[in-house]
Structure formats: C-alpha cells, structure tokens
C-alpha cells in the first residue's frame, strides 16, 4: 500500500479512537438520550403524526444537533492534538501535511457521521416505533440521515479549518451555530442565503416529501449541491494550505 495512504489510515484510526474513547463522547450519548425522550414524548402526545415528526427531526437534528456536534468535535480534534503535543507524531512523519489534514477531516466526518446516525436513528425510532414503521417511513429515515450527513460534511470542514485561523474557536463556533445558522438562517428574505443551513434545507426540500422542509422555498437542487460542494472543497483547500504553512512550536 502507498505510504501516504498507510499514514492517512493510521491517522484516521487514531483520531477516531480518540474521539470515541474520550470523555467528550458522553455529549453524544447525552444528546441521544435527550432526543429519545423528546421524540418519544412528542410521539405519544400526537399519535406519531408523520408531518409533525419530520418537523421535529428537522428542527432538532438537522438544523441544530448536526451543526452543534460538528462544532464540538470539529473545533477540538486538532486543537487537542496541538495541546497534548501528540501532533508532533503527525508533523514529523514523512507525509505531506495536506494528506494529514485530509486524514483529520475524514476521521472527523466519519466520527460525527456515526454520531449523527445514532442521534437520527434514536430520534426517528423513538418517534415512529409507537405509531408503527413502514417501508415509506424507513425511506424517509434514509433520506433524512443522508441529508444530515451532508450537513456534517460541510460543517466539520468549516470548523476544522477555523481551528487554524482563530484560537478560541469554540466561542466563535457557538456564536456561529446559535446566532448565524440558528437565527439568521431562519430569517425571512435573502439574508438566509448567506447561511449553510439555507442550502441544506433547500436540498431537503427536494429530497423529502413531508414536513415543513419539503415546502421550503429556497435554492434549486443543483444550486444547493453546487454551493455546498464548492464551499466544502474551497474550505478544504484553504485548510490544507493553512496546515501546510503553519508553525507548530
């Protein structure tokens, strides 16, 4: 196997192990429990109404927890390696720094993706099991999870790169998640086009056929795909460049 690939796989394995075995994983478990309680309670309150259930998944998971979990893990994966000095192993390896940065990004995407799968599954089944799950609803679950995973891919690269630009990323991250994505992203008018959640929800309006998200009047399917893809690639390139040129004393 190519040496760069071996190195990247090792970094992915090591970073994922760190993300799942550290105490911070408790946050994910806490979110899963919270989502189960909220969704189950909602389900028995309104007899598992499909429209309402998707609205809840949208507000709770897609619009909030996808960005929040990406922020929590994205702002810490590299920062922790810098702080505990284990980054020295990565920097002194005979591998291009961009390969290492890509390794961190893949580890982050896969880890947060798995966590979002747990959160989405917990919320979906807690809501729909009492009312019964048919093939159609499973189809909705798969579409909804893919949408959430897409959001994770976009948000994680943003927060990972942010680590290399500002020091106290977590504060900026909180502001971004709660104020920019959580508030500005839901304002009427064109200003919401400046948020990532607008394009993710626009995409959702073309993928899902139920819930408020399906009626969301946003950008076209292709425009949303283009914006999210170009944003991800552009930020990934910027992140690679910054990581490549950064001093790590």
């Amino acid at each position, binding site marked *: 196997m190519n040496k760069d690939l071996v190195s990247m796989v*090792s970094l992915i*394995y090591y970073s994922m192990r760190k993300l799942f075995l550290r105490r911070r994983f408790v946050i994910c478990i806490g979110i899963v429990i919270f989502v189960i309680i909220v969704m189950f309670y909602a389900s028995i309150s309104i007899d598992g109404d499909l429209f309402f259930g998707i609205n809840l998944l949208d507000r709770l998971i897609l619009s909030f927890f996808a960005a929040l979990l990406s922020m929590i893990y994205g702002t810490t994966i590299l920062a922790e390696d810098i702080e505990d000095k284990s980054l020295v192993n990565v920097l*002194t*390896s*005979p591998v291009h720094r961009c390969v290492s940065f890509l390794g961190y990004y893949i580890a982050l995407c896969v880890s947060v993706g798995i966590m979002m799968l747990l959160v989405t599954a917990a919320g979906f089944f807690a809501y729909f099991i009492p009312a019964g799950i048919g093939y159609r609803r499973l189809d909705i679950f798969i579409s909804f999870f893919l949408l959430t995973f897409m959001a994770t891919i976009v948000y994680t690269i943003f927060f990972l790169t942010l680590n290399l630009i500002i020091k106290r990323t977590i504060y900026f991250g909180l502001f971004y998640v709660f104020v920019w994505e959580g508030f500005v992203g839901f304002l009427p008018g064109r200003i919401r086009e400046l948020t990532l959640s607008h394009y993710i929800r626009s995409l959702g309006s073309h993928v899902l056929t139920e819930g408020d998200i399906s009626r969301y009047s946003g950008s076209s399917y292709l425009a949303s795909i283009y914006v999210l893809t170009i944003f991800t690639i552009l930020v990934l390139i910027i992140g690679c460049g910054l990581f490549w040129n950064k001093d790590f004393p």
Partner: protein
Amino acid sequence: MKPILTADNLSKWFDEVIALNSLSVSVGRGITGLLGPNGSGKSTLFKIAMGMVKPGRGEIRLLGQNPWSNPALLQHVGYCPDHEYLPPDATCREYLKLVGGLRGLSGWSLDDRINEAAHTLEIIKSLDRKIGDFSKGMKQRIKVASALLHDPPLLILDEPLTGTDPKLRKRLIEILLMLNKVEGKDIIVSSHVLPDIEKLTDRVVLLYKGRNIASGKVSEIRELLDQYPHNIVIESPSVRKIAEELMEYDWLYSLEFNEGPERILVKVSDPKSFYDIFPEIVLDNGYKINEMYSRDEDLDSVFRYLMEGRI
C-alpha cells in the same frame, strides 16, 4: 565530510521572544551534543530542523536539504521531542503501531520493526502494558523506540535523558552509543547536563539565548564549566542514607533538605566525579531514585559567563 546539520545566521521569533538569534552552526557525522540551559534554543533548532517550525531568517540544511515543506526528508530522520505526549490509555504496542503507521509502515514489516526497536530499547516485555502505568524512564525509552521505528540513519533526540534515574541514564547512554557504533546512526542529542553529553561524545555545541557561544571538544568546555559548583536535585525514599554516603567525598560542597519531602539538593564542586560515583552508590546499596536532575540556574550562570564579551 559533509555536515549533517548546518545553520547559517538562523533566527526565529515567537511574538516578542527571540528563540534563535543569528545562529550559525555546523554538525558533522557521529554523535554531537547540543548543550544549553532551558530557553537556549535547542528545541527550537530541532523543531526547525524537523520542519515543524519555519525559520524566521537565515538558512538551515538537514542532510543537505531545506527541511521546511520537505516531508520526504523526514524519512531519513527519527525525532524524540523533549515533552511528554504519550497517550496514557494506549499500550506501548498500540502507540508504536500508530507511530509506525504514520511513518508509512504496515503489516509484518511494522510488527518486525516494533519488535526490533523494543528489543533495542529493552521494552519488549512491556509492549502490552498501558503507557499510563510507566515510569518517566520507561516513557523516555518508548519515545526513543518510536524514533527508531522507520530505521532512520539520523536521530535527533531532545533531552532524552531528562528525568531518568542514574541506572536507566547509564543504560540509555550505552544504547545510544551502540546505535552509533553498531548501526552507524548519526545522533544529535541535546541536554543541559554536561556529564551526560560527555559520556556520549566529545563534540558539543553550546547554545545560550539562541546563539552558538562555543563548539568543540567537551574537555575544553568542561574546564570552563567545572569552575562552578553544580546543583543536583535527587528525589528518593533514601535521601538521608544517600546524603551520608555523599558526605564522604571532598567534592561535596553542601547538602540541603529543604527541597520537599524525600528530596535533597546536592551541591558539588566536581560534577564529573559525582556523576561517575553516584550510580555506583545507588547500585551498591540498592537505593530507589524517583527523580534526579541538574538545576539550570547554575548552568545558566556559567553560560552567562561564557557569553561575556560575545554580545
């Protein structure tokens, strides 16, 4: 013979702090000691040489190449940093697998290299123990073993002997000598304890406040340093017995017990004799040494003395 490391007017600032100040140095093959107190620029020089930090001004060459943005060069260099960074929840084998993987090793070749490095550093029996359970000395061995994994011809070791007890210090020195003599590896090793360096090599470079203030044979440097008493802190459950033993020697300047529980500050006028005799005292009596290190302040004053007239 081509030098393995050269720096020409190399400077580096971190905000307002100058870490290297127009440093010019040339390090040849074999073992070379880099001597200087904390903050003298040893680690910064190593970090620049390993491509972790960009030089501010001047030029540096490692094995004839510019190390910045040059990952291919790192295939030929093994690095052991001075700081503690080992994951306490991983076993020694898991950690070495990670480092080997990052260096592009996999499968049987990685397992073989782990066993070989562990055998060299005598940690083979501890490979499956958690790193968190290890002593400082064992951790230093693991760090050196990880630097050996990809079998590089050059080793850059930043303070590998710091915090080790005399017995392990002696053994590590023997291992480093073997790596040079038997395996032909070039080694650049830093320390702030001259007697440690002296046992490894007769070639040293003295750094102080980011400058090369002297380089050459150890014997010449030692003559200057030995004019000053050295302060050595020893932590052991048997400090009182150790003190009694040390009082027999005329090079003992003073003993102070106010360093904390089970700690003693030993001032000696002849550090070489102390470092020669002390391991024998420990081994003969079976004393347990938790920690032993040389105080920097004394060395600092010597370096200041050496710097006079050079700035």
